[in-house]
């Protein structure tokens, strides 16, 4: 009875995992990279590397941002100002165009410019999506309609949750094999590696999968909002976060109040509420209906590193400068829970050390998925040993999986490295340069996928792993050659530390992939003739948990 249950769980685990593993690996790898979204963006904008962090007050910066916005978009629907933080040194301005009635809103209505916080002049930086490419790829994929992509991602995440839980159920020796890794033993080694990367980072895997599904729950489970709010999401969120809906423009022009004063006022109010004045920084601000009689200005307070973001905000009248509305830190429990989940998933509360631990766990997840996929193929090959020995080709299913494994596991490092290479190599003046960086990623990946289907075999594995490993290893060299200002030896001495960190991480990743390539060359005899484990399997369906 117990064995039957375990066997059925093993079946679920195998197929739930196999069905989504390739897309899941893409999602996981992109998500892991997204922990360093800002650092990646900075690396990809070498023009910013010489700029020192600004020491000026936020009130002055806000004034400069408003001047820049007045020049560019005096009659926008709303303005947005993002202040420099420890992880991003530019002063960002966004604006949203007013649309004539009846026009379908598109992404084109948003514009953004990065300013030098000390001068308010635009920073001439190369066009790149930077780390935001990985961030979007993680839940929007690419080249697909957003809603469809998010359903695919949600489907994969749900399957991953199922695979995690069934994996724990069928892993009989979870405590006995807790630290066990036995290399060079064929199938046994792949199973060990799969178990160890899964079990040792299990708290992280469960957390990340569950919170990831939660973040998109409004899409996956819309019924409550449909029933209780007649499908009006805005009304729901407004009530949830106690936001006042933005007033409609009146159509009468009016002079905007001094934004710098409002920033100083907000900081004063928050200092009073904190008592010690340690954290009274503005994170970002919105200005609705600028230069209109119905203008309003909201400022959001920067968090102080807790799991729950500050949630404090102030709204002022944009003409008289009067305080209209204040949200204090006392959020309701349900909002606190939702925010804590988002924070946990995105690690946006994390100090550098904790962020690195998240990154390591994320890499562990990538390895868990990759080793699981390889394990399936190794087992199938074992099952077809007699057929293969008689000179017949592998079944089409096995051939497809082996090709996909090679194309995705060895192909993703190549594709991601291509992104960084393209950033340095593509000419700065190229039209749609940021899109071309991304096209390069998918062109490179498509090439590897095709090669993998054409000749899935160990030589191709070696070739692709060497290529990926060397691309990562050589990234700092390329960086030093094409953008000498940002070379590792320079950034190690005078910063930015994030740029040096990315170079060093690239070399470590490259070294690890080269090691894998070298091992692939070494274990020739074992892959074609895997060593049998000490005892033959009693029951094939229990192979997952066989006894050594």
């Amino acid at each position, binding site marked *: 009875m117990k064995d039957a249950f375990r066997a059925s769980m093993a079946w679920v685990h195998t197929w739930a995992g196999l069905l989504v593993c390739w897309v899941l690996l893409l999602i996981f790898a992109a998500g892991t990279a997204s922990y360093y979204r800002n650092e990646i963006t900075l690396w990809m904008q070498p023009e910013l590397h010489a700029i020192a962090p600004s020491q000026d007050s936020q009130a002055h910066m806000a004034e400069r941002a408003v001047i820049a916005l007045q020049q560019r978009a005096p009659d926008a629907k709303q303005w947005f100002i993002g202040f420099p933080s420890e992880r991003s040194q530019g002063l960002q301005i966004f604006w949203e165009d007013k649309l004539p009635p009846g026009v379908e809103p598109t992404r084109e209505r948003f514009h953004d410019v990065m300013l030098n916080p000390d001068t308010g002049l635009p920073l001439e930086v190369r066009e790149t999506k930077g780390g935001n490419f990985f961030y979007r790829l993680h839940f929007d994929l690419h080249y697909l309609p957003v809603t469809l992509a998010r359903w695919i991602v949600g489907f994969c995440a749900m399957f991953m949750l199922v695979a995690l839980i069934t994996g724990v159920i069928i892993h009989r020796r979870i405590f006995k094999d807790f*630290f066990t890794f036995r290399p060079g033993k064929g199938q046994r080694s792949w199973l060990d590696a799969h178990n160890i990367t899964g079990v040792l980072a299990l708290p992280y895997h469960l957390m990340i999968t569950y919170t990831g599904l939660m973040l998109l729950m409004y899409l996956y489970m819309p019924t409550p909002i449909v029933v209780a709010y007649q499908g009006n999401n805005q009304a729901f969120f407004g009530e949830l976060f106690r936001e006042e809906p933005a007033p409609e423009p009146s159509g009468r022009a009016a002079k905007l109040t001094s934004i710098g004063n409002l920033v100083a006022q907000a900081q004063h109010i928050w200092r009073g509420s904190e008592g010690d004045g340690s954290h009274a920084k503005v994170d970002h601000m919105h200005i609705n209906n600028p230069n209109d009689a119905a203008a309003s200005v909201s400022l959001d307070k920067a968090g102080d*590193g807790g799991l729950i973001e500050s949630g404090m905000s102030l709204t002022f009248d944009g003409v008289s400068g009067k305080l209209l509305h204040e949200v204090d830190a006392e959020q309701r429990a349900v909002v606190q829970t939702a925010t804590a989940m988002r924070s946990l998933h995105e690690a946006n509360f994390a100090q550098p050390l*904790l962020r690195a*631990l998240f990154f*390591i766990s994320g890499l562990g997840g990538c390895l868990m998925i990759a080793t699981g996929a390889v394990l399936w193929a190794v087992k199938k090959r074992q099952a077809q040993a007699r057929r293969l020995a008689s000179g017949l080709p592998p079944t089409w299913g096995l051939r497809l999986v082996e090709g996909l494994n090679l194309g995705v596991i060895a192909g993703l490092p190549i594709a991601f490295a291509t992104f960084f290479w393209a950033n340095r190599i593509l000419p700065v003046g190229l039209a749609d340069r940021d899109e071309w960086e991304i096209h390069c990623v998918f062109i490179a990946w498509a090439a590897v996928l095709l090669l993998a289907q054409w000749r899935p075999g160990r030589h191709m594995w070696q070739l692709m792993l060497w290529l990926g490993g060397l691309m990562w290893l050589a990234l700092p060299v390329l960086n030093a050659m094409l953008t000498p200002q940002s070379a590792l030896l320079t950034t190690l001495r005078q910063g930015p530390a994030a740029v040096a960190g990315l170079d060093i991480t690239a070399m470590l990743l490259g070294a690890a992939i080269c090691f894998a390539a070298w091992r692939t060359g070494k274990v020739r005899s074992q892959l074609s003739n895997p060593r049998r484990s000490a005892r033959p399997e009693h029951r094939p369906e229990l192979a997952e948990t066989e006894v050594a």
Partner: protein
Amino acid sequence: MMKGSWLYLAVFALAYLGLASLAYGMERHHKQLTRAHGSSVLAALKRLTPVAAWGWLIAALHLAISLEGAGPGSVLWLGNLTAAAMMLALLLTYAPGLARRLAMVSLPLIVLGMLVAYWA
């Protein structure tokens, strides 16, 4: 590096020491940890190791929470456990002697970390 980074290192050292003690009490890993060394001073304490191990791990949790607060502190603790366990698993496979020496070094490191953080 931030001030008090010694204490963050101490969290990792406590996590590693706790997990190494757990491994020490497990048949297969006990062999790995002692083979390079013959009989060890700790061998007599083998039966106490699981108790000690949980003690170290709880101490790591306590220190992490005192550094970061309950929420981020417990996340920090879990992250350290994962990183330390992965390191230990690799060391047990490829360099068991080093795994043992690092466990030995952990304890003075923790004490040193506390002292430095206290005096600095």
